[in-house]
């Protein structure tokens, strides 16, 4: 169903669906900021910023609860069908994934707070910073698919997750090398490895969001061989 659907006869139903999409966008903006700030706090060893990110996660959690409540209320009152039903159910999934991304940012910030005040060598954290940028781009594109109804964009986001995974594996090997080179790097590299793992998980949640958008648009799930990056997609 690629054409733009007609508006609902009941205007308040239309308004409620639009509000759901708006809340998802707002929540998306909050977790994007959380990922940016958590990475910035990590590389700058900025404990104040890290504390702010960890504290702000409650706002993300509250927004997730609000989206859940609105979605459940709409299911109960409107008895949505077809594309409306898919959008409302997908909103619940997307809000859960965004909340998890927020948790990943919070985890990075908490780890930052446990790290010493001493700044790390740039060569240690540059890989994590790059990974953060890549994951942020994934989250941004995944959120775009929620509003754009672009099936091909969903597929692109899912496929690009392979690059995030590959970067994580390469960082893992890199940190291992630093640790073997100089045991004094072990503490910092272990912290950074956990942060990289958190970012990798955030990337997985971005993929889930794109998959949810694909479901809203097509009513189907992405083929599993596509998720595994086996088949070519235009």
């Amino acid at each position, binding site marked *: 169903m690629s054409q733009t659907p*007609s508006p*609902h006869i009941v205007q308040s139903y239309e308004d409620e669906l639009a509000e759901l999409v708006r809340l998802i966008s707002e929540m998306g903006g909050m977790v994007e900021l959380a990922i940016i700030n958590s990475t910035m706090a990590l590389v700058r060893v900025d404990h104040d910023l890290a504390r702010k990110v960890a504290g702000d996660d409650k706002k993300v959690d509250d927004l997730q609860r609000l989206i859940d409540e609105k979605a459940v209320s709409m299911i109960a009152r409107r008895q949505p069908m077809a594309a409306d039903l898919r959008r409302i159910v997908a909103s619940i999934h997307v809000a859960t994934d965004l909340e998890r991304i927020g948790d990943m940012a919070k985890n990075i910030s908490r780890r930052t707070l446990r790290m010493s005040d001493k700044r790390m060598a740039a060569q240690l954290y540059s890989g994590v910073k790059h990974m953060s940028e890549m994951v942020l781009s994934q989250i941004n594109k995944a959120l775009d698919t929620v509003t754009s109804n672009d099936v091909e964009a969903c597929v692109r986001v899912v496929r690009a997750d392979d690059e995030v995974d590959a970067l994580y594996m390469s960082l893992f090997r890199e940190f291992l090398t630093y640790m073997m080179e100089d045991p004094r790097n072990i503490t910092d590299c272990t912290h950074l490895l956990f942060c990289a793992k958190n970012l990798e998980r955030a990337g997985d949640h971005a993929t889930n969001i794109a998959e949810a958008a694909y479901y809203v648009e097509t009513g189907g799930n992405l083929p599993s061989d596509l998720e595994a990056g086996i088949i070519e997609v235009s």
Partner: protein
Amino acid sequence: MLDVNTFPAPERLAGLSKVPCASAAPVPETGVKPKISARDVCVFYSGKQALFDVDLDVMPNEVLSLIGPSGCGKSSLLRCFNRMNDTIDVCAVTGTITLDGQDIYDRSIDVVELRARVGMVFQKPNPFPKSIFENVAYGPRIHGMTKDKQELEELVVASLKRAGLFDEVANRLEDSGTSLSGGQQQRLCIARAIATQPEILLMDEPASALDPIATSIIEELIDELRENYAIVIVTHSMQQAARVSQKTAFFHMGKLIEKGDTEQIFTNPVDSKTQDYITGRIG
């Protein structure tokens, strides 16, 4: 989109040059023959066409919902299945409708016998102004289905039990059918319809005049009756269609727009007209 090419065309269609549109393609179950087959069915009222080239199969032990806006032709089609349209002088039906492969519009068909095989329940409960017992006994009696009074009584009780009404009326079978509540009257009409042991039950908005409890009882009954009958139900309630039927057909302006598994129709319809209708959009 259903692909007609993946289904073997029924033999009787082989000689026809007309290709049914893909959305109207029947979905035959493998190895199971449809109870009712409608092909190229058109209905006219005073020359004005109300139904256009409908191809539809009703499978045994299946509840088929017909949905669509008022005036879309769903009730007209339902009434074709037991030739109720014969009672309307200005109504003309073309095309073929078969029951177990036999053309029900053939001259050799006894319409009274056909209606015993294809029972009908209407929107408004319409018990006869007779006793509860007589309401149910009427059909079997005129069709000569029982050989003595005891057998007739057994059939009446069995029908009332299957319609889920017996326990409520067991001690007042001689009371008037019209003294019952709306939900009970509707179940009495269902008991009356199944007393003649039909093979197919047609229901035209059977629960639209009932409260939610009575509606649930009727829906539970439909689910139980499915074990023995094919059921075609016309309903304006999307939720009811979604709850009770296995297959759903959507009509719009006299045309069958889409038919498919109920789950597919209500979660991921193929046609945008179906989508607009079931989601309450301006089509």
